[in-house]
């Protein structure tokens, strides 16, 4: 049976070697909080009830961010009221 992406064992194939130029860019862990907030992700435990869309709007308003989006929701709550978890990207 096909293996899901997150279970695939990977090995690295090398084409060429090169030193990173220290004058440009920086490793993700060295980013300042400002830089992190400019392009970061939040694994958000969405409360039951409000839609992901609503939650995104709240985050925008509460934190004053310009761009917030989400990537991962399910159908809108029907009947028994289901609880999908969504994740948010704040850009």
């Amino acid at each position, binding site marked *: 049976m096909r293996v899901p992406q997150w279970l695939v064992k990977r090995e690295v194939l090398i*084409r060429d070697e090169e030193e990173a130029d220290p004058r*440009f*860019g920086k490793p993700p862990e060295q980013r300042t909080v400002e830089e992190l907030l400019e392009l970061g*992700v939040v694994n958000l435990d969405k409360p039951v009830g409000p839609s992901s869309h609503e939650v995104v709007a709240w985050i925008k308003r*509460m934190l004053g961010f310009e761009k917030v989006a989400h990537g*991962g929701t399910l159908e809108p709550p029907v009947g028994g009221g289901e609880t999908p978890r969504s994740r948010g990207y704040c850009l």
Partner: protein
Amino acid sequence: MRLHGDVDDERLMEVIKEFEGPIYQRPPLRSAVKRAVRIRRIYKIEVLEREGRNVLLRVWCEAGTYMRKLCHDIGEVLGVGAHMQELRRTRVGSFSEDKHLATLHDLVDAYYFWREEGIEDYIRKVVLPVEYAVRHLPKVVIRDSAVDAICHGAYLAVPGILRVESPIKVGDTVAIFTLKGELVAIGRAKMRSEQMVSAMRGIAVETKHVIMRPGTYPPMWRGTRKAAG
């Protein structure tokens, strides 16, 4: 899953087992996609708990599998009928219910701690670098000199590649990284990983989403003309 009739454990397990592997599903009436029968893979179904007609299942499935439909279909095969009572997404791509899972309260608190008191620890725990979102994708690491071109939407050509994670098949979604481990873009592979390291020329990855801001790295791709002038 809520069963509409009584079924013994053995029969239940037997039917659930049948649903592992590829299954046919037609999206429900109220759905965002075209209602054509399609195939989705169920990697595994685990029965976590059972209390009479209530059954708690953990399902590992392919994106686009309808859980409501799955419950309904299991009920049909059992002959008693069933429906989905509650649903929680426990993982999607690289996101799971791990230590990074945060509530809205966590997020707002962490933000204010940082904003008002300059405490960084909390916000750093909640807001993760974008790279976290593509942990599950195979990586293609490129030369610093190729970065800005990709930021401007260019496709990744073979000479710009330093190393790749194998296996990559044609059509796979891959993440393009710098040597420093920064995410540049997400794209679709036009070659297999072996070809990416052996080919002399050609397009290796079609850039789909640019993540890094152009200008982060110098625009070497403009060539000597600009450097001279």
